[in-house]
């Protein structure tokens, strides 16, 4: 039973791995309702330091499409904040607080004024600061001259959770205009990313195609495309999941076959007598197969708990992937996954029981009885 439970646990884990990343990522992307993302041509959002020029012009072009409801330009940069005799560095997003989709406000207020900044818990911890504190924030570091392009005094107005934030990442957000001003000339009217929300009922893919035609220096990515691209990057894990899942299923199958075969061999006499008193071959097989199914089912139930524990452990390992949003789970429990695993096990249990059962039920009755008598 333990052996079958372990096979069931591994199978569940692999089914969760095969489907989890994609579903988890999809949930993350749809969480704020922005169906499209625009990145510099040929890149994925925040994959490089490249930026898109002409924010005002692009926004104007997009507003001309009635299917586009909201446009949220985002500018990314690095910041440095002196604390004592050291510098705490992190990443900052310049956003329009009224349409942003990058963070969730946990306490306090959005950065509505030009001197406001919101930060995540990790950065707060690094700074030893609280909401309401004042920070001296610098950005645009030039390693040649070892100077910053801009430094401002900002007030922490809120505590936030960055939806796409990775583990242990210091992150903040401020108004885009503030960040542009701090960065100076080279970042004026530029964005790292546009998030676009389409009108309800509009075809996001059509809007995507329209954008790419109208604005040739961007790559427009729909949720489906983003998922497909991340899928391709993490395809290795899906393939691994399929292989290990298949192996687990096979081993479980072997185990159940062995259990049933041994059980049937032990009961050869009993089976011969059942046939002798008139029980049909089909019923004998049915009985034995049901036993195989029962073992698989019991193993699956036991394996469910074991599988969830193992999945959590493995997920913790994979969550350390650099740059991966904290919200992504590799192993996501979905009831569908559990049902799939159970169904696979039951089917394999049936298969595992059929052959030894049929063999046992087909043995010549007289010979079995004679063997039993001798034994």
């Amino acid at each position, binding site marked *: 039973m333990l052996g079958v439970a372990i096979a069931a646990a591994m199978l569940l884990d692999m089914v969760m791995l095969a489907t989890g990343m994609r579903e988890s990522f999809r949930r993350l992307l749809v969480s704020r309702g922005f169906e499209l993302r625009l990145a510099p041509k040929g890149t994925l959002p925040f994959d490089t330091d490249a930026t898109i020029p002409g924010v005002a012009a692009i926004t104007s072009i997009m507003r001309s499409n009635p299917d586009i409801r909201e446009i949220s330009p985002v500018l990314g940069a690095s910041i440095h904040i002196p604390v004592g005799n050291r510098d705490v560095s992190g990443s900052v997003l310049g956003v329009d607080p009224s349409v942003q989709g990058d963070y969730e406000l946990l306490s306090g207020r959005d950065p509505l004024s030009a001197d406001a900044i919101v930060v995540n818990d990790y950065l707060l911890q690094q700074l030893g600061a609280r909401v309401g504190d004042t920070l001296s924030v610098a950005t645009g570091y030039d390693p040649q001259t070892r100077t910053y392009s801009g430094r401002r005094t900002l007030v922490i107005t809120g505590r936030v959770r960055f939806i796409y934030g990775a583990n242990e990442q210091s992150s903040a957000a401020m108004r885009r205009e503030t960040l542009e001003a701090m960065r100076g000339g080279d970042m004026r009217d530029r964005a790292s990313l546009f998030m676009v929300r389409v009108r309800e009922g509009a075809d996001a893919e059509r809007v995507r195609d329209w954008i790419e035609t109208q604005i040739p220096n961007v790559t427009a990515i729909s949720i489906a495309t983003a998922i497909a691209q991340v899928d391709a990057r993490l395809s290795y894990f899906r393939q691994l999941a399929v292989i290990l899942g298949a192996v687990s299923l096979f081993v479980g199958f072997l185990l159940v076959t062995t259990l049933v075969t041994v059980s049937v061999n032990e009961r050869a006499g009993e089976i011969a007598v059942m046939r*002798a008193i008139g029980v049909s071959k089909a*019923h004998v097989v049915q009985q034995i197969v049901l036993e195989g199914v029962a073992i698989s089912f019991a193993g699956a139930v036991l394996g469910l708990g074991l599988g969830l524990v193992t999945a959590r452990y493995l997920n913790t390992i994979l969550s350390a992937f650099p740059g991966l949003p904290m919200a992504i789970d590799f192993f996501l429990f979905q009831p569908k996954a559990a049902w799939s695993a159970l169904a696979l096990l039951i089917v394999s249990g049936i298969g595992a029981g059929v052959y030894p059962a049929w063999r046992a039920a087909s043995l010549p*009755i007289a010979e079995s009885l004679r063997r039993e008598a001798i034994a």
Partner: protein
Amino acid sequence: MTQSIVSLRDVRRDYALGAERVHALQGVTLDVERGDYVAIVGPSGCGKSTLLNLIGVIDHPTSGTVEIAGKRVDAMTDREATSFRLHNIGFVFQRFYLMPILSALENVALPMAEAKVQRQERQERAAKLLAYVGLANRERHRPSELSGGEQQRVAIARALANGPSLLLADEPTGELDARTGAEIISLFQRLNGDGTTILVVTHDEDLASAARRKIHMRDGRVVDGA
């Protein structure tokens, strides 16, 4: 003229044992009348159990004909043989072979369930049969909770479940002590007195003596009593 319920004509049964060919039965011809109580006796390896298996349609003769209750059974298909056994023949074995996870009542009801008898009816009939064999108060007990004699009585009740024309027993007292064996012997006599045709294979002298007719076998042949 009484009707033969069992009729064998020149029946032979050979089978391979390693490289050798064993002639378990060599041209057996015999009849058993309805209501008879026959004991088949002989030394080990004389073919008694083989003969019983052929009559019980759990084996096929190499040649010759076997007729049970007026039906040719020697060339039946597996499905036909199974169905025939279910409705016409009751088996009792030396080792009882009760289903360990079923109660006494459920063991007796098993052949009736296979014959698609309704639940209510089969429970009533099973209870009646257990009462007949003297185990009315042991219905709910599992085989592990019954003595050897009690288990054999449950096995006999099971054999009678579908009202068979013929009751076959292979060494029914083989695993029992003398006192318990005697109880089984007297049960068989009662059954026969109530009209059941019984064929029993045995080494037990007492059991053989209780039968109305003895068939002696040696080296695959009937030497006396055919």
